[in-house]
């Protein structure tokens, strides 16, 4: 089976590999789950608040629960998944800190990706246009964006440090190219990357 999958999902799939237990939080239409389940033989569950998407997942043979992560994560036992995935959703929660805490509790490892608010186009937009940034990754206006808590790659790394969260791996996507974030290149990556992907525990 060939799936058209975005680069980010390819990277996440590669990290997870085969025969793992995975929870995809905010799994959408199940594209990543489907790949993980049928092409990589993982045991995958999903959580998704939008009914239509849940139905789509169920029809694809995926076990997805309709529900809001801010309420539903508490029901999953500690370390019950090898990986918990949260793709570009952290910024949309009312209480991202609590959600992250739950993810870390449930998963042996957690993969979090964030749209980088430090990306140069975002900075430019605000600096020169003087209005809230709209980019390919952040397509909404300030009044209808689901994103409540935007952060930069640097913000996220600082946050993990402050909360004693161990970052096993920091990756970033720059024009569809993947590279590793280190202390040395952080300044540039925080400007040049659209997306940060972190493996934390």
């Amino acid at each position, binding site marked *: 089976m060939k799936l058209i999958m975005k680069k980010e999902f390819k990277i996440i799939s590669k990290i997870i590999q085969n025969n793992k237990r995975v929870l995809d939080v905010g799994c959408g239409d199940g594209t990543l789950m489907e790949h993980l389940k049928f092409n990589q033989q993982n045991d995958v569950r999903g959580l998704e608040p939008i*009914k239509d998407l849940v139905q789509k997942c169920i029809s694809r043979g995926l076990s997805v629960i309709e*529900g809001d992560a801010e309420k539903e994560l508490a*029901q999953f036992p500690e370390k019950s998944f090898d990986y918990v995935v949260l793709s570009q959703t952290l910024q949309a929660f009312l209480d991202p800190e609590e959600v992250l805490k739950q993810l870390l509790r449930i998963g042996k490892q957690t993969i979090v990706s964030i749209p980088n608010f430090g990306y140069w186009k975002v900075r430019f937009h605000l600096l020169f246009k003087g209005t809230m940034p709209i980019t390919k990754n952040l397509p909404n206006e300030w009044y209808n964006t689901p994103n409540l808590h935007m952060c930069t790659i640097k913000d996220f790394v600082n946050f993990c440090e402050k909360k004693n969260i161990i970052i096993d791996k920091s990756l970033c996507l720059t024009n569809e190219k993947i590279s590793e974030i280190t202390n040395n290149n952080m300044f540039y990556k925080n400007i040049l990357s659209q997306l940060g992907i972190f493996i934390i525990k």
Partner: protein
Amino acid sequence: MNKETKNLKKLIINHSLELDCGRTIKNFPVAYETYGTLNKNKSNAILAFHALTGDQFVTSINPITKREGWWTTAVGPGKAIDTNKYFVICANVLGGCMGSFGPKEINPETNELFGTTFPVITIRDMVKAQIYLLDHLGITQLLSVVGGSMGGMQVLQFASLYSNRTFSAIPIACSASHSAQNIALNELGRQAIMADPNWNKGNYFKTTLSPDKGLAVARMAAHITYLSKKGLQEKFGRKLQDKGSLKFSFDADFQIESYLRYQGSNFVDRFDANSYLYITRAMDYFDLEKQFNGNLSLAFKNTKSKFCVISFSSDWLYPTIENKEIVIALNACGANVGFVEINSDKGHDSFLLDVPEFLKTLSEFLNSTYNEINNEKRI
């Protein structure tokens, strides 16, 4: 009612079954029906469980009532549960009145109808009886067990008792333990029957009379609980029945009154009052959580079955929150579970009606499960 059930398809269970009440039954009939054809590797069998007033006639014309089967919207050729593809089995529950062992059957020890001397049965008893039917049909693993309302309770009980006998389970609009409100509503129905002098302590079959009025009232009350306020308002509102103005009497002025009366009188033609008492009791006694000392997730420990829990937004009899408790318990033990709440104004009855989103979910879940089990190529 005393419709002839003698010629219905029945299996006489030769085993003895110890009921939850302590009594043991043996050589008892389980009436059943099947639809579709069992495939070669026996991987397409679905056991459907009926609800309180259902029977084994899931689809097509019921030969006794001459009406369409209770789940014709969902089961049949080309339907969500496609009988061209799946082999669908349904049995009349213990305590029922469509040929299975129930209060309307003859007690071989006394040669009289059981009436209220029939043992009180439970959901677990019902499910245990049906496993013999699967053995008889030579089915070791079902593709799925499916049912709504009391049928959903049987799904849960089955999945708990015989998790290795089904690849998947679809509990719909149900609960793992009957709520106080639902016990209260069932009690209302039972009291209506027992308050009818014709009930005669359950011995009405010895007379020419039957507690039709009581049973009809029980059905009317229950029927209201199957609908939603919004649904009722939209369908009936304050519309009058075949008249231009109020008649200042106690006749059925309003359409809703007439509708309920019709539902009540229709029901007594096809259902036995004592059966109604027994089956509602079984529902009230259902408490899967208690079977596992208050920890529902233990009911599903080590289950390999794939679950799809479905609830309806306007169902106040088995509300989403109660269905979600099942999901939470399944998640707590790491079971494979999906859950969706279907938007519908049609109340608890939604699972029996033409609710496209529901039927689509049902169809697609079964289809993907079937493909998984048969290792078919995915598109």
